[in-house]
């Protein structure tokens, strides 16, 4: 009898504690946001599509068209052609496409790259209705990104 009464009171107390906790959480800021209206940033370890690194020292990528990424890629995403420039120096790519719709984001190309010029992009909203949008021409892509960087620097 006494045990039962004690159980009722401890139960009632635990309900009060629970109510207090939910009230406390109700007054906190919501963790969700209105996504398409409010911009958001992906996690710092987010793995988006593959892209060229733009090195600040040279202001461009450092691809030497060694085809290591093309060879190691399990899904055959890359198509690369490269030549030695007429004025001499390192071999440079003159054609570099990447097929994101085949890519499994395994990061093998990034590990294989001898000049460390490949990375995951932080972009995340890449959905498209058109299959051709997933073929990225890295050389054009790099030029566009350089322009954007210049615009932000000059502003």
């Amino acid at each position, binding site marked *: 009898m006494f045990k039962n009464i004690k159980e009722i009171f401890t139960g009632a107390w635990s*309900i009060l504690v629970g109510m207090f906790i939910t009230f406390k959480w109700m007054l906190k800021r919501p*963790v969700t946001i209105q996504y398409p209206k409010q911009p958001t940033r992906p996690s710092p370890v987010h793995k988006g599509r593959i892209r060229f690194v733009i090195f600040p020292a040279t202001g461009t990528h450092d691809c030497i068209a060694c085809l290591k990424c093309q060879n190691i890629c399990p899904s055959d995403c890359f198509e690369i052609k490269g030549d030695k420039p007429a004025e001499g120096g390192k071999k440079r790519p003159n054609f570099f496409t990447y097929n994101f719709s085949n890519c499994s984001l395994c990061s093998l190309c990034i590990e294989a790259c001898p000049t460390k010029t490949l990375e995951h992009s932080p972009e995340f909203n890449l959905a498209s209705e058109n299959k051709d949008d997933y073929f990225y021409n890295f050389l054009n892509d790099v030029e566009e990104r350089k322009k954007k960087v210049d615009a932000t620097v000059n502003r």
Partner: protein
Amino acid sequence: MINIAIQILIWAVGIIAVVTVNALALVYLERKVSAHIQCRLGPMQVGFHGLLQTVADAVKLVSKEQIIPKNADKVLFILAPILAFFPVIVLFVVMPFAPNLICRDLNIGVLYVFSFASLEVIAIFMAGWSSNNKYSLLGAMRSVAQVVSYEVPLLLAVLAVVLVIGSLKMSEVVQYQHKIWMIFLQPAAFLIFMMGGLADTNRSPFDIPEAESELIAGFHTEYSGMRFALFFLSEYSNVFLVSCIATALFLGGWYGPFVNGIHWFVIKVYALVFVMMWVRWTLPRLRPDQLMNFCWKILTPIAILNLLVTGVVLKLVH
């Protein structure tokens, strides 16, 4: 004669308007309270902070097709939502909103309230039985067992209050509390009343009749369109009505600090509604056997003890 007819017409239109607008407001409030307790934002898109969300939902429900299952009992199936909505409107007749704002101040107001409130369970069982669906029937059976059981401690708690006041008239019940609210004289009765009220309106933690995780939606699984909306409307109006009755019986109705009037009644009712929502989003659902044990082994003995003590004390005082 004409005067009375106009009066009745105004009351009828007023009650229906209050029921509808109030249900829309309560659905919005429920969604916002649940969202903020779970650290979400809730409806934000339709209107300022989603204020028109429930209006949009209502428009959607009205424009939907009304499906009647092939093997359903058609007459009962159509009658059930109407019967569920009927007590809601009828109960507003004796609600003491303010000294001069009672539609009919019946001598047997309290008795009238609880006799019509228990009609709800018949509508729920009609809905569950006529749907010819195992989930509906299970939900309806649980609902009948639960509501009939919880009416015992609820009425015993109200009986203690009536014993103190000595009247069943709603206005006299409120006027008795102009010095001290009944909750301070009968705290145990108030707690029992609120628990019984939660169970009677099929709300969490006593919502096994519509337990979503096991019964889909319980007794209204097969309903769609406006018929579903009527069940929804009556559910939220019942929440409002239980808070109204609790305010009139325990929290001193229209009495409050500074100016007495309808605003105190409304504030108290919405505070109780908020507490009911708060409880819903805090506590998990009870198992059916726990629910029955809680009613018959804990609430009913306490209610009887409370009634006994009240009777003895009143006999000693007089």
